[in-house]
């Protein structure tokens, strides 16, 4: 605590003509590991919390896949663990909907938003721009603890009598607005809203910090066009979050009014058990507009950080400069702008005016252009490179592969006419799981394997890393590829049991196969978790400051950087972040002044 207080003083009286004075403050366990204001520790806190949530959210998918794969079978062990939620070893409908809802909520918000940008924005922004810490370390700490509070509330909703929210992760009214509507619309829904409010507060506190650190606290010489692409990606992610999460909050405020005060913002002409409710004139579509104004940028909040991580890892491990640096920034910017203009493509079949729909089709398909630019640049970056197949690099390449597969099906769904057939089918499930679920996870794994040495001064185990990669990529395609066929055949998503449809009988064995593969891939993720924690304490030690021979600033810090990151002065930057294979040299760090006879880019 006292250490950070000292840094705070630095803000107030930035005098001391650069005299390096060393203070060794005693750090207690609480100030170092719990209420830490060090951005590196906060990053680890986000990561570990994210890992715990990923196990919970992943387990939920295994459970509901059991129901989908083997609808006739009973699993007595489920009753042992879940009691009346799985009487006789069969998952009850309410439990099934709660599982799918919480799987979506947990993985989208708690793992791939907080766990992903929370980890890498906190770890990389100060280290790569050359800052001692975030603009406001205190607000940064608050951001984590808000997230932690949100986690506790969301977790507690799992243990309520009526169960957690169960109306889908989008919590559409009227299901979410009426406690009478279902089991999951009772206290679980209130806890969901409270948790998400805390979560939004956490994202905003974090986001403001990320933006102001990147724009205001770069070290000398670090112009915007010398920043690594990770930082650009995290900047646009933070901008998206700061501008779109508040709109979700406004939607949730009106939802709370409808739930508890009897207003009719979203409710109209509803009968429950033969009784007419007094609500009139409300519009459920209004909620959908407010929700998707966040909901769509949200998918870019998930994927953009991994685009940055992959760009960096691909360039380093190909020993080549990133191809089209400026085009990469421009395409991130284009995605960031378009992200706000396409939300209604989630609502093509809500009775939207077809002319309005066609505008959203055009804007949606436009996103294919910046996405394609990025994919092209990643492939040309590794083209004829001296590739080092580290686990991080494999996951980065896997990310590109999966992003292409998932992106292509987006072109189908972005067309409002084809969407009439495909909406609410397994095709949609396949599309978004591949393009933002699996590929974001691949980017995240790449980042964890690559920056683990910076986080803990040790390497993760390579062999386990390779097994993790190959099993995961094969299983990911095995799970989601067949779902496209199910979707084409019209198989609806969200349904508990489809066995009464003769036409879907052909998919029984396919569904069983998907479930078995889900269990295998879940087990392999647990192996990754083991690798992570084992390597934290027992992994091979990092002996050199710059193990990947990278150019960026984080590798100029000591192997175990203290709070403040650099022992002496913050290094000055003289060049961009991608001088690999230049003038016969393998790499040139950003801190090295440009030589007299050096060729220009």
């Amino acid at each position, binding site marked *: 605590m006292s250490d950070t207080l000292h840094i705070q003083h630095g803000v107030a009286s930035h005098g001391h003509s650069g005299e390096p004075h060393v*203070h060794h403050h005693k750090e207690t366990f609480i100030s170092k590991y719990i209420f830490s204001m060090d951005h590196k520790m906060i990053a680890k806190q986000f990561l570990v919390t994210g890992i715990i949530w990923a196990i919970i959210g992943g387990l939920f998918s295994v459970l509901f896949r059991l129901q989908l794969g083997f609808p006739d079978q009973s699993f007595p062990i489920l009753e042992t663990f879940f009691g009346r939620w799985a009487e006789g070893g069969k998952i009850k409908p309410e439990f099934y909907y709660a599982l799918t809802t919480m799987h979506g909520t947990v993985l989208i918000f708690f793992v791939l938003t907080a766990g992903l940008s929370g980890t890498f924005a906190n770890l990389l922004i100060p280290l790569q721009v050359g800052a001692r810490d975030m603009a406001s370390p205190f607000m940064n700490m608050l951001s984590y603890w808000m997230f932690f509070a949100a986690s506790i509330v969301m977790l507690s909703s799992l243990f309520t009598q009526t169960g957690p929210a169960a109306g889908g992760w989008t919590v559409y009214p009227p299901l979410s607005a009426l406690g009478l509507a279902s089991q999951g619309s009772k206290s679980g829904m209130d806890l969901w809203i409270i948790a998400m409010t805390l979560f939004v507060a956490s994202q905003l506190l974090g986001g403001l910090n990320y933006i102001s650190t990147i724009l*205001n606290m770069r070290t000398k010489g670090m112009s915007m066009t010398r920043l690594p692409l990770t930082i650009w990606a995290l900047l646009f992610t933070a901008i998206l979050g700061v501008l779109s999460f508040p709109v979700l909050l406004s939607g949730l405020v009106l939802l709370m009014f409808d739930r508890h005060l009897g*207003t009719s913002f979203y409710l109209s002409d509803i009968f429950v058990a033969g009784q007419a409710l007094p609500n009139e004139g409300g519009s459920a579509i209004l909620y959908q507009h407010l929700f998707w104004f966040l909901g769509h940028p949200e998918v870019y909040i998930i994927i953009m950080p991994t685009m940055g991580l992959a760009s960096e890892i691909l360039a380093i491990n190909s020993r080549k400069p990133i191809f089209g640096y400026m085009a990469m920034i421009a395409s991130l910017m284009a995605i960031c702008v378009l992200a706000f203009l396409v939300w209604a493509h989630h609502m093509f079949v809500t009775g939207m005016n077809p002319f309005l729909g066609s505008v959203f089709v055009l804007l949606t398909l436009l996103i294919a252009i910046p996405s394609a630019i990025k994919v092209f640049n990643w492939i040309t970056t590794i083209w004829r490179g001296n590739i080092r197949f580290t686990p991080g690099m494999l996951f980065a390449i896997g990310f590109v592969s999966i992003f292409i597969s998932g992106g292509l099906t987006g072109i189908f769904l972005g067309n409002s006419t084809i969407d009439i057939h495909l909406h609410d089918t397994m095709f949609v499930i396949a599309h978004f799981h591949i393009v933002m679920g699996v590929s974001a996870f691949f980017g995240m794994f790449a980042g964890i394997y690559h920056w683990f040495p910076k986080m803990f001064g040790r390497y993760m185990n390579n062999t386990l890393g390779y097994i993790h990669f190959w099993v995961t990529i094969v299983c990911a395609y095995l799970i989601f590829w067949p779902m496209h066929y199910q979707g084409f055949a019209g198989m609806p998503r969200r349904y508990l049991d489809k066995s009464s449809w003769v036409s879907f009988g052909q998919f029984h064995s396919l569904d069983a196969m998907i479930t078995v593969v889900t269990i295998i891939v879940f087990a392999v993720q647990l192996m990754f978790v083991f690798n992570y924690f084992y390597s934290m304490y027992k992994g091979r030690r990092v002996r050199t400051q710059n193990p990947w021979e990278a150019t960026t600033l984080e590798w100029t810090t000591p192997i175990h950087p203290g709070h403040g990151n650099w022992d002496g002065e913050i290094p000055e930057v003289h060049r961009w972040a991608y001088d690999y294979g230049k003038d016969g040299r393998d790499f040139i760090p950003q801190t090295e002044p440009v030589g007299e006879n050096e060729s220009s880019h």
Partner: protein
Amino acid sequence: MNTSIVSEQQHRKLHPHKFALWVAIASILMMFAGLTSAFIVKSNQAGWRTFVLPGIFWVSTVLILASSLTMLMAIKAFKSRGMRQYRGLLGITFLLGAAFVICQVVGFNQLWNSNVQFKGASGAGQFFYAIAGLHAVHVIGGVIALLVIFLKSIAGKTKSYDAVPVEVMGMYWHFVDLLWLYLMIFFIMLG
């Protein structure tokens, strides 16, 4: 370790805390933009009802405008080291802010008693409760912050002449003031 996180080069730039506040303001604006667009969307649908704004909201408008003025003067006094003046003006700003919140609550009650309530179809009045209520929450946050820096200025042993915290406070205060003006105009024109 050189612990100054603000380097010489950054002196000329916007202070990070001020910049962070600008981003926060953009974020809060998005929330109110979301709510007022929801208002516009909903106002085109069946069952829409309008309401008459009670006169007391004009009083609260004058109060918050006046508080912005005293906040401005307080910062000016702080910068010219007129600490007694500064403390006085800060205290007045705090009282005006608190009075604004009380006026809002009284106004909500009057509106409620004129039969603009939650049951049945929702219209401009119900949006007004939600939107002006959220604005009042933001003002209460500011009033608490004002109280904190007021107490610090009278009780603090160390004298700080760093203007940044006071300026950040002022920026936020002017923001909630302007936000209220926007909401007032919005509800007068469309409510």
